[in-house]
């Protein structure tokens, strides 16, 4: 009986480790090897090969640096829409990624693309990654609950607990705002190709409303079959094919 119990405990521990830390060493070695091969191709100017290797990495996992390198490779072969998409993805994973911010700015300025104007909510959200905000939100929420319930059992609140509660409340509020900011960004898409037709109706034969430039940002509002209804920062709206855009938060 004791042996059986011990075995069960070991299995549970293993499962927990697998859940929390899915990247074991073998997996890590494989993906790192693909990443390094991609880098070698890039340094030799074989950008398509580099992209191929990086995309294989993406099948296994992803990182901000991987998206950054893919963005660079796409840019080198003049696929600026895809380059911008991957720089945006790198920033989605790590909002404070200075290299990705710099390259994104560089590519946009080179294309004469308007730099997106971020609201203060969006700027607050981008201080930290979404995951970090989620953990901060959970911690501050439970801290508020603990600081409301427990001090009563320990002789009432004092200045320290009130200060802690206030801080936790502020953090919780910031998290809510940041999550709202991320929620707004959730529908952001990048136009992949130049002269993408913004159609009036979701059909192939619909007249165009405007033409979009590769790399432009737009917000996806609804879908109809293979068409998506987009609204651009300039206020233009219309339908594009799903294959003509890339979703940042996919």
């Amino acid at each position, binding site marked *: 009986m004791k042996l059986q119990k011990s075995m069960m405990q070991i299995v549970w521990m293993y499962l927990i480790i697998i859940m929390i830390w899915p990247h074991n060493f073998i997996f890590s070695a494989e993906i790192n090897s693909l990443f390094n091969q991609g*880098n070698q191709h890039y340094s030799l100017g074989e950008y398509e090969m580099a992209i191929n290797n990086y995309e294989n990495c993406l099948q296994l996992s992803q990182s*901000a640096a991987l998206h950054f390198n893919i963005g660079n490779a796409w840019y080198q072969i003049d696929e600026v829409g895809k380059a911008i998409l991957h720089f945006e993805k790198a920033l989605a994973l790590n909002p404070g990624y200075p290299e990705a911010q710099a390259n994104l700015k560089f590519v946009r*300025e080179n294309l004469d693309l308007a730099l997106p104007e971020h609201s203060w909510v969006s700027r607050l959200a981008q201080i930290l990654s979404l995951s970090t905000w989620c953990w901060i939100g*959970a911690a501050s929420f*439970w801290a508020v609950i603990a600081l409301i319930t*427990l001090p009563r059992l320990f002789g009432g609140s004092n200045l320290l607990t009130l200060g802690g509660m206030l801080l936790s409340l502020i953090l919780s509020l910031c998290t809510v705002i940041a999550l709202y900011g991320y929620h707004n960004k959730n529908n952001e898409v990048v136009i992949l190709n130049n002269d993408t037709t913004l159609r009036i109706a979701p059909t192939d034969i619909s*007249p165009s409303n405007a033409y979009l430039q590769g790399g432009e940002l737009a917000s996806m509002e609804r879908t109809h079959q293979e068409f998506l209804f987009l609204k651009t920062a300039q206020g233009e709206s219309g339908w594009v094919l799903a294959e003509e855009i890339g979703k940042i938060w996919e």
Partner: protein
Amino acid sequence: MKRIANFLQIISLIVTFGVSIWGSPLLAQNAVVYSQFNPPVIHLGQSASYEITVYGTQDVSQETIRGKLRNVDGLKISNNSSVSSQFKFIQGTRTTSITYSFNVQAEREGEFTLEAWQVNIKGQNYRVPAAKLHVVPQGKEFEKSMFLKLDIPKDNFYVGESIPCHLHLYLRRDIQARMRAYPEKTGDAFTQSELRKEPHSAQETIDGQIFRLFSWPLTLTALKAGEEALSYKIELAVILPNKRSRKSPFDTLFNDSFFNTDSLFNRGNFENITLFTGDISLEVLDLPIEGKPNVYSGAIGVFNLKTDVSSTTVEAGEPITLTLNANGEGNFDRIAAPVLTETENFKLYPPKTEFTPTDDIGYRGTKSFEYIIIPQSEEVTAIPSIAFNFFDPKTGEYIDLSTKTTPIKVLPALTQSPVLPSAIIAGQTEDPEEVDLQPRLLPIQLLPGKWVNGITPVFKNPVYIASQLLPIILISIVALIRRRQLRFQRDEIFARKVSGSRSVRKWLTKARKAASKDDKSAFFESAQRAIQECVGRHFPHRSESLILAEIEGYLTEHNATDELHHNIRQFFNAADAIKFADGISESEPLSKWEKTLSKLLNDIEALG
């Protein structure tokens, strides 16, 4: 020969009509005949088709249509035709139509009319109405629906002069087009500025029709004098809206815009077309010799010049930055760096040039020239004047804007000559790009960083969701423990009950151990303590000080049985005998005493 050709054409018509009608069960007794060229406007070299459409209301078969197609001078009409038929049900009646198409080639430009002619259908003569074909020069066939136009503010300018222009593409609103290539210039006497990738777009109404207007601002610069031609073309892929070419008598029923769903359901004809501006003749003049300065900067336009000196008091060998800003409008790309008139006693480096445009095309802005000049000795008293001039095309005169000398004070060199900024030393050429101050794409990352499963928000992760249970459990445990602690502090009886029960268990365990070792002394001592603790939970003072009388009093108070009284007395007596008389005479085994003790404790518990 012409007569034979006409005869063959008539025979061909008869055969074609006859064969096709014999093969198709249509045509009407009350037939209506229409004709047209499709498209009605073509450019020279393009082909059109001449279409004759016969509408009927009843089916007929094996009919013969006879007629003589007229010849048109300047048009080649093919002998072979293609036939297509169409059926419609209107209010339960089937109507049919047959269209005969003849290929037509134009031999020259102009407007051609194929006059009305007679056709015989089922013995009745019908009139085929006249049709018109317009043959225009290449690029003009779409001028009513789309055209390219170059707006130039004037038609004569000087060699080297830059002119701001606009290239306009007009597309009627119902035309859907895609640019296959950027507009292309023809004419090597001019250079143009780089075209914007995205043209400005707007709407304009021309003759009551709404056009979408795409404009590329640009500058044109003439390279050589004389009468020079210039033109632009643009290649488009166009989806032309379908023409409702056959006007049947029933079409009027469907002409209501409510029924007009063509734009949604009838795919247009996709066509690659090229639009031309046509040749634009411009007169390019040489710059006048008269009044031309010896050192001419090449600037044409209207400019102002501002100078700025970094310091007017320096040590010998210390660099001074002299900045010249030429702002205004004109041919900035052709302005050469102004020249210092005297350079003796100065060490001079080529200027760093920078242009900051204030418009899209680089026609307006500021061009700055940053000179590093180093006075070599304290004898230098002024920065020499700098020659700058431009030609004003409006007045036709050269304007001199040369700077005056700037007085400076040069002190003897006390310190070592400073090292010049590396960028400037390296920049001994006028081209700033070689200095490599331009921003570049940052290189790739060599390390992959932290791998993550995806961009999916963490709150959708089961680990994250499960982890929220942890604080709930933790807070609950802390709260429960604290509440129990507080009850211990506030409720003495509860505290005694809880601690008493714990003590009873402790002494009972000791008694059992003693029984197992057959240690009578330890057993009865532990048994007595267990009984004291069990009863003592209901007394405010310490349980070990309880005497038998107090215990019996409690038992009497709670109506305990005599057996219980007796058993307790026995345990106390045995314990006292061992403690004070050094032994007991009891011969029963301790295991039996142990059972009695357990029962006794349970009975006391039951009382309370």
